């Protein structure tokens, strides 16, 4: 605020050093000079300024009322799917923008009005309030301890040891009921985590690998070097009630690696003509790892960046995963379709205590 239209005689005198609370020439120069004398604000001494502040506060409250009216109007006027272009936000929902902004203004102006009122028109005298120690004095303390001792003695808690011990025992046991009740939260793990849906496959009754995109079985020549394909077991569809649980373990990542690039013979033996079927579920904490770099043959997990070398038996070459991606043994049936004849040799997904390999 400027001083332009304020009558000079209403301004307080500038303080000089004689005001008592400034420098004491002798003694401690760092002593507490005490609370400074209160200085008036313009609104304290100039009625016109006070009136102006009053109008400003009211104006903010009025703007708030208008904004609330605007909020209700926007709610009624804008269809929910109306999109408008607002610079620099882009194409946004007209309703969301209008409701948010009007609500924001309505609320903000109430706050701004109240604070402006407090800052300009309410007293700004700083006053001290005494603190009292939190600790009780010794007399109270002694009194309370005495009372407690009396109470404890009257209860006989310390004397009647049998009551005390049995009571502690009963209190300690009773929460067990609550713990027992939690048992049915879920089944026991047993060997559920060790197997996947592929365990249904046997050499006699193999399971076809089904292309995630087309829902069709695949032939070996469909999988080209450098391509990436995701697969699921035959018979698993989105309509399956257990689809989410099953796909969380069965999902496969199929890649084909040129023979000269294969580094691990065990791994290539599990594959078919360089087609390798790895679990898509990261062995770190279970994200679907599928950031496949076809030139380096590295697969990166988007969650925590564990990196596996798919040409080398999915060995972990970087990041927090502790063991390679499990690989599914695949071959082809007499019609040339890719099939699995058994489960993964190791449990898929994140490791767990009972995991043996």
């Amino acid at each position, binding site marked *: 605020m400027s001083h332009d239209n304020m009558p000079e005689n209403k301004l307080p005198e500038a303080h000089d050093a004689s005001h008592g609370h400034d420098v004491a020439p002798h003694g401690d120069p760092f002593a507490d000079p005490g609370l400074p004398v209160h200085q008036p604000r313009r609104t304290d*001494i100039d009625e016109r300024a006070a009136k102006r502040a009053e109008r400003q506060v009211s104006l903010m409250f009025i703007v708030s009322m208008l904004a609330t009216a605007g909020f209700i109007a926007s709610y009624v006027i804008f269809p929910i799917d109306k*999109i408008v272009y607002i610079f620099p936000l882009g194409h946004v929902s007209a309703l969301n923008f209008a409701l948010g902004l009007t609500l924001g203004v309505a609320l903000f102006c109430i706050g701004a009005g109240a604070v402006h009122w407090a800052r300009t028109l309410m007293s700004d005298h700083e006053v001290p309030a005494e603190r009292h120690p939190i600790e009780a004095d010794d007399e109270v303390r002694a009194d309370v301890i005495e009372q407690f001792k009396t109470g404890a003695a009257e209860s006989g808690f310390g004397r009647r040891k049998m009551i005390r011990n049995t009571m502690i025992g009963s209190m300690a046991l009773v929460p067990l009921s609550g713990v027992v009740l939690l048992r049915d939260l879920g089944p026991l793990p047993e060997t559920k985590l060790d197997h996947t849906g592929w365990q249904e496959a046997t050499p006699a009754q193999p399971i076809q690998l089904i292309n995630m995109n087309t829902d069709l079985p695949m032939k070996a020549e469909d999988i080209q070097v450098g391509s990436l394909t995701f697969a699921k077991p035959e018979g698993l569809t989105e309509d399956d009630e257990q689809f989410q649980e099953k796909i969380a373990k069965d999902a496969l990542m199929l890649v084909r690696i040129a023979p000269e690039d294969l580094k691990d013979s065990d791994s290539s033996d599990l594959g078919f003509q360089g087609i390798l079927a790895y679990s898509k579920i990261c062995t770190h904490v279970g994200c679907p790892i599928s950031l496949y770099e076809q030139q380096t043959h590295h697969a990166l997990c988007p969650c925590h960046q564990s990196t596996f070398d798919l040409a080398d038996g999915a060995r972990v070459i970087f990041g927090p995963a502790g063991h390679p991606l499990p690989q599914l043994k695949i071959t082809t049936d007499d019609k040339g379709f890719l099939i699995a004849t058994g489960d993964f040799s190791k449990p898929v997904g994140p490791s767990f205590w009972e995991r043996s390999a």
Partner: protein
Amino acid sequence: MKKLSARRRHPLAALVVLLFALAVTGGLYAAFAPAEKAQADSSAQSLAIDEGKRLFAVGCSSCHGLNGQGSSTGPSLVGVGSAAVDFQVGTGRMPAQQPGAQIPRKKVIYSQAEIDQLAAFVASFGPGPVVPTKDQYTSTSPDDVAKGGELFRTNCAQCHNFAGSGGALTQGKYAPSLDGVDPKHIYEAMQTGPQNMPSFPDSTMPEAQKKQIVAFVRHTTSEEPNPGGLALGSLGPVTEGLFGWIFGLGALIAVAIWVAAHTTKAKKS
């Protein structure tokens, strides 16, 4: 005789014979040659190949060899197909400026006609994916966006992010943003698997599904509004956190400073 010879000299006769001959040779060729090669032989095409060869010798052969056989600085181009050339040159990735973790997208320096000529030349090395026609990558069904979305989340979002904003790969490589990429180039990338991107050939991802993915990418990167306001780069919670700290808490602290500050005094002592 006269009649016959007169009929033979009918002005259109030569054309009919020529068309007939062309149809027979073309039909025979189509019957015996691999599908990709069928288009590779017409006089216009061979002209293009010649022109492409000249362009190739100037702009590409230093790395890829005069006949695309490859060298220590550039891979062999035998069998990459015209789609790969159209993608690499059409997005400015080729010719590459400098070696690095990844060749970035940059300003395109060839005209589309020149790119087509280069593509024709490279396609002549051996069969490979062909530049798609407009019908192949232009969706007409409104259902395609939703179907493409699901395919995108299965096949693409892991690298390119849910909104096609791109993401990091290992050792400085990255999956680029799909924002503003020509639908044809998106299609070609899926066909050919440029650089470290795996390919999604028609054998595992049929043409129709590629079209659906293109439809989704187009929709999500350029047509879809952000009903809630600024998209903050569509990068997930990291930018949301930054925005919350800087603009949210920042504004609140600025207001708190105003609330708590002493009101200006009428005159300073």
